[in-house]
């Protein structure tokens, strides 16, 4: 077994997790802000939808995504513009799937951080002529910094750990969709115990560091009274 076979899934996983975190920050930040600030009666409904990936079996999500991303779903129509047949079994498909799967892990810490800021400081900024956008970027975002850090770490880590969805919508294409968790499964199936051990031990260390990082961030944030 060559080193490339070992490192390719790791590198692909890092790429997938980074891409997913970027997409999630772009989509999740306004969503979390809305959930934290709105008085709309739709708030709980939307909040519930965001939380659903926490409870659903990944295979259920994967199944629906497969239909949506496949040749006869909307994903297929989009793919046609780029001359492809389907978004399933592509890296783009994995990013879409991971975004939905990890959504609650990014939105929840951001929502909590935004809620903790509350009205008083934003009102003070408004009386000092800060427009709504300006208030968001100069008051809310800096104060929610620990929330952003937690959201990025959790979003990254949770994406790294996903398996079920990927197997459903990504399959096992080396360099395209064969991420770490799938590779470990594959190594075990083909009785490559050494490689399975290496990758699994690496994941153990990674998981430990992630949880440690999140609690350190949480404690720091608590200390400055946020």
């Amino acid at each position, binding site marked *: 077994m060559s080193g490339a076979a070992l490192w390719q899934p790791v590198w692909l996983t890092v790429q997938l997790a980074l891409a997913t975190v970027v997409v999630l920050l772009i989509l999740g930040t306004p969503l979390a802000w809305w959930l934290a600030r709105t008085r709309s009666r739709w708030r709980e409904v939307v909040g519930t939808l965001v939380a659903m990936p926490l409870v659903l079996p990944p295979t259920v999500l994967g199944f629906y995504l497969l239909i949506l991303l496949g040749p006869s779903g909307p994903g297929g129509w989009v793919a046609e513009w780029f001359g492809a047949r389907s978004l399933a079994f592509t890296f783009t498909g994995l990013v879409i799937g991971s975004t939905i799967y990890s959504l609650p892990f990014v939105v929840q810490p951001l929502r909590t951080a935004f809620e903790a800021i509350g009205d008083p400081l934003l009102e*003070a900024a*408004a009386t*000092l*002529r800060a427009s709504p956008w300006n208030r968001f970027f100069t008051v809310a975002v*800096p104060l929610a910094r620990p929330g952003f850090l937690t959201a990025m770490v959790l979003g990254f880590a949770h994406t790294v750990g996903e398996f079920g969805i990927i197997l459903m919508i990504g399959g096992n294409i080396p360099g395209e969709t064969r991420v770490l968790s799938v590779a470990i499964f594959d190594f075990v199936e083909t009785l490559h115990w050494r490689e399975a051990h290496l990758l699994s031990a690496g994941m153990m260390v990674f998981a430990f560091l992630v949880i440690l990082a999140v609690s350190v961030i949480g404690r720091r944030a608590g200390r400055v009274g*946020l």
Partner: protein
Amino acid sequence: MSGARIAGALTGRRGDFPLDLQFDLPGEGITAIFGPSGSGKTSLLRAIAGLDRLDGWLKIGASDWQDGARIWRKPHQRPVGYVFQDARLFPHLSVADNLRFGAERARKGDTRSGPDPDRLIALLGLSGLMARGVQNLSGGERQRVAIGRALLSRPRILLLDEPLSALDGAAKDEIMSYLEDLVPALDIPILYVSHDLAEVARLAQTMAVMKAGRILQSGPVDRLFAELDLEDAAGRFDAGVRLRARVTGQDRAYHLTRLDLGGQQVTVPALDRPDGSEVLLHIRARDVSLALARPEGLSIRNVLEGHITAIDGAAGSPFAEVTLAVGGSALRSRVTREAVDALGLSVGKPVHALVKSISFERGRD
């Protein structure tokens, strides 16, 4: 903004109680918004700043800030300086950056020159704090930064929402002195929310009295203190009068200042004012007792002669409020109704007023 007014008619609800705010206040000097907690003082300020939206209209000088559904200036489009009860400094910024936050966003294209930042910072005693974070400032320091931040945003109107209520006596006094030094330099109207009559007496020229979501009356402090039944808004025990007196001399040995009050002498703890200058006194009704003859062997030194002009005592209350004429001024005394009967007090009767405590404010003339 001289001559211009702060006027409006705003109605709505705040939580459980209705608001009906009709006002026409002067566009200069300090106007105290006075009333008990829950009377709608803060709601008035928030509506002026645009933080809460009520129905009606609001005009500051020549500009319409709200007119029904037709005109609505958003809070960040209103040149107000708002100092909140709880300072609301930005915890992620240093003192200097908090001050800069206000200054940077001052109205673009505003040709009026704002306060000189260096002078303001020195005046508020903030020079030594600039690099500090705001987390470890004392209550008084926080409020000074908040006042500086609001003023550096070059407001056309300054809204102070009980800026001293969270502070202890010494810090309170310190900030009041800062405000007194600042105000003459500012050419903008100030609305000052307070439920403390001594603060009102010391700082304001005009006052608006609020109760249960309405503005009962507004006008010069001197007139309202004498005329209005402030006890109603202030709660029984803070009713009082404001009187003008003239400094006649200093008693260096006892650290006292002698004042002439309508031809009679009173003494107060040493006041650093030249002879002949006018001071304003605030005497609370509960600090005034009555005697039929000039008493002897008494530690109270300020005894004034006058006669009774009115006695108000509701049957349900143990207290009566006695109004006296003392050398052309009115003085109020709170005594029990039982005392009124026992002493045979009645309108026209000459009495001696024993004044236990006098608070004083800067003279304005």
